[in-house]
């Protein structure tokens, strides 16, 4: 009986030991589940938690990034690439402007934007690398998971030791969440090639050069979610294990996080576990400078009546030139012009029904800008710079602006004050042009920006010239006993000049095109005594 009792006791102890071991191992599994869930929680909430966002000031270069901030006006891991994208476009614009001899102060402004982007990026990196910011994100989920196999009151909490909460730079060379669907967004082919576009997106953790500065974006692979990764992949891609070369400031924003959990409140022995998560916001943007505009300025149309100009001696008489400058509206009009008599013109020189403003085929902005198709390609040149700048305003992925879109947009009539028009995108998808009141009503963000000038220097980009005869429209009415020396004649010279001042995008202005229309009406006619 004693043997039976001993065997019974041993068996009971074995059963108890097995039970405890099973519970402990089961608790280990629960711990892994809780840690994995906590890691995924970090991978998701890292984009939305306020402690991991950077606030933008109200003024200074950093305030220029308010248009790429999130709905709370903050910069975080999901939209830091937009900040870098805007700075990159400014540098690319400035570089192209310098090459064209129109740099102005654009390079200085672009560098200010780069430095501001770097400061924002560094501040964000510091917050992401601070494990104290990640503990609550981990515990929010981990503590809710059951750990009953280790005790009814057991919870999985963060193991608070910075050594185990490292960050890493994964998916190097893979695409980011910044789309570049068309080369039209860049000011030159070379600047587009420098981007190294991959799957219509900027590459991540790959140095990109623009304006002599090195940019570095964070990769977020398309159609992927935040997910767990292996320890070996994580450890081999930390900044210290594999530094990013060629990035001048050496402080890239991480996209992967290590977490460690431990049990608290356990009955006997506790458990620990680690996991590694690669974050992905599943949100894409277009390489853009959202709150920007192009200014179209139509100067007063200048009309000059020139009677008997240039000066000449005709029939032994010194001809006095008469000149009168006025303006004309942007539509077809007819004017009568009378010339007063001089010693060389005993009579009245009259232009009868002279067509003025004939270059305006219709009262639209298209007429104001282009008048007619140019043979020297200058129309295409102006259209190209406008399309390129407009594409920088568009934020909606998959949407591009073409020359055909520009021509359609410019069919708008000339309204408002007739002189100042603004091209802008009210929603990041569509593009409009209109006078100031119209523009600010559609896009209130324009109000503080609309008065800003582009930071480049002006250069003529378009020059059109044509003339037509005023045959039959010029008369000389001689004084009594006088007669015209020769049949009067006239010619109308039309000149349309377009001047382009590019902008880097700093302070919102991507450029200004200034149009000058002149009509010079020449009349020749002299009368004298019979």
């Amino acid at each position: 009986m004693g043997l039976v009792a001993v065997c019974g006791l041993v068996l009971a102890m074995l059963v108890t030991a097995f039970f405890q071991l099973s519970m402990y191992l089961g608790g280990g599994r629960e711990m892994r589940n809780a840690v994995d869930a906590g890691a995924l929680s970090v991978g998701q909430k890292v984009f939305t938690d306020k402690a991991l966002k950077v606030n933008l000031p109200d003024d200074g270069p950093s305030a220029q990034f308010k248009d790429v901030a999130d709905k709370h006006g903050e910069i975080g891991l999901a939209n830091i690439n937009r900040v870098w994208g805007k700075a990159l476009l400014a540098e690319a614009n400035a570089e192209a402007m310098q090459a064209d001899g129109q740099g102005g102060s654009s390079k200085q402004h672009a560098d200010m934007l780069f430095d501001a982007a770097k400061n924002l990026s560094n501040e964000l990196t510091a917050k992401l690398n601070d494990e104290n910011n990640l503990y609550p994100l981990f515990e929010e989920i981990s503590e809710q998971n059951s750990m009953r196999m280790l005790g009814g009151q057991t919870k999985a909490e963060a193991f608070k030791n910075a050594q185990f909460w490292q960050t890493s730079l994964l998916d190097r060379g893979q695409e980011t969440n910044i789309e570049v669907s068309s080369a039209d967004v860049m000011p030159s082919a070379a600047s587009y090639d420098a981007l190294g576009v991959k799957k219509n997106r900027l590459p991540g953790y790959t140095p990109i050069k623009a304006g002599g500065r090195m940019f570095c974006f964070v990769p977020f692979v398309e159609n992927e979610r935040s997910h767990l990764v292996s320890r070996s992949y994580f450890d081999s891609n930390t900044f210290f294990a594999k530094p990013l070369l060629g990035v001048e400031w050496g402080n890239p924003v991480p996209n992967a996080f290590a977490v460690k959990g431990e049990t608290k409140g356990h009955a006997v022995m506790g458990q620990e576990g680690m996991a590694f998560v690669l974050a992905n916001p599943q949100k894409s943007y277009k390489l853009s400078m959202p709150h920007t505009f192009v200014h179209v300025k139509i100067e007063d149309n200048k009309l000059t009546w020139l009677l008997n100009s240039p000066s000449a001696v005709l029939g032994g008489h010194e001809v006095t030139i008469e000149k009168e400058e006025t303006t004309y509206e942007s539509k077809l009009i007819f004017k009568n012009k009378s010339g007063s008599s001089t010693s060389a013109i005993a009579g009245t020189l009259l232009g009868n029904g002279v067509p003025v403003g004939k270059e305006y085929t219709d009262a639209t902005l298209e007429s104001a800008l282009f008048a007619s198709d140019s043979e020297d390609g200058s129309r295409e040149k102006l259209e190209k710079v406008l399309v390129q700048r407009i594409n920088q305003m568009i934020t909606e992925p998959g949407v591009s602006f073409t020359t055909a879109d520009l021509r359609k947009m410019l069919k708008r009539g000339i309204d408002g004050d007739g002189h100042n028009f603004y091209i802008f995108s009210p929603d990041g998808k569509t593009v409009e042009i209109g006078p100031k009141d119209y523009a600010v009503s559609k896009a209130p963000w324009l109000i503080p920006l609309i008065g800003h000038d582009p930071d480049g220097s002006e250069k003529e980009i378009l020059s059109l010239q044509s003339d037509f005869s005023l045959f039959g429209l010029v008369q000389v009415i001689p004084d009594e006993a006088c007669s015209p020396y020769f049949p009067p004649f006239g010619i109308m010279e039309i000149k349309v000049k377009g001047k382009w001042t590019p902008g880097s995008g700093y302070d919102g202005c991507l450029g200004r095109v200034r149009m000058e229309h002149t009509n010079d009406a020449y009349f020749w006619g002299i009368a004298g005594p019979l």
Partner: protein
Amino acid sequence: MSRLKNRASNKGQSFIEVIVGSMLLVPIALFGLDVMVIVLASSANDTLAKNAARAAANQSVKVLAVAAAQKYVASVPKSAMVLDAKLDGSIDYQDKKQVEVKTAMKVKVPAAFAGMDVVELRAVAVEPIVAGPADI
């Protein structure tokens, strides 16, 4: 004669000892077996809850999340021991935050004690929702 008597009484004593011992050891052994089955089934149920919660967390709307969790749970093979596995009530889906899934598993123990031949195990798992773009 007395040796014969001793042998007879020794055999009788051993037989009684075996009977009594068996009455003690066998239940303990069977109980241990039941415990082993319950612990393993509980662990399997925890895994079931976790995976169902993961499936639900990969959906961006509650309707799809419920369907995903149900589909996963329904795919668990039944056996002589695992009689049934199902979602325990509706899932708690908090849009853009987390999802909580409860599962219930009916397990038939090898050795029934006091009429307790089927044990219902419950597990709960909470996972963050990873479907859909970040809410920024």
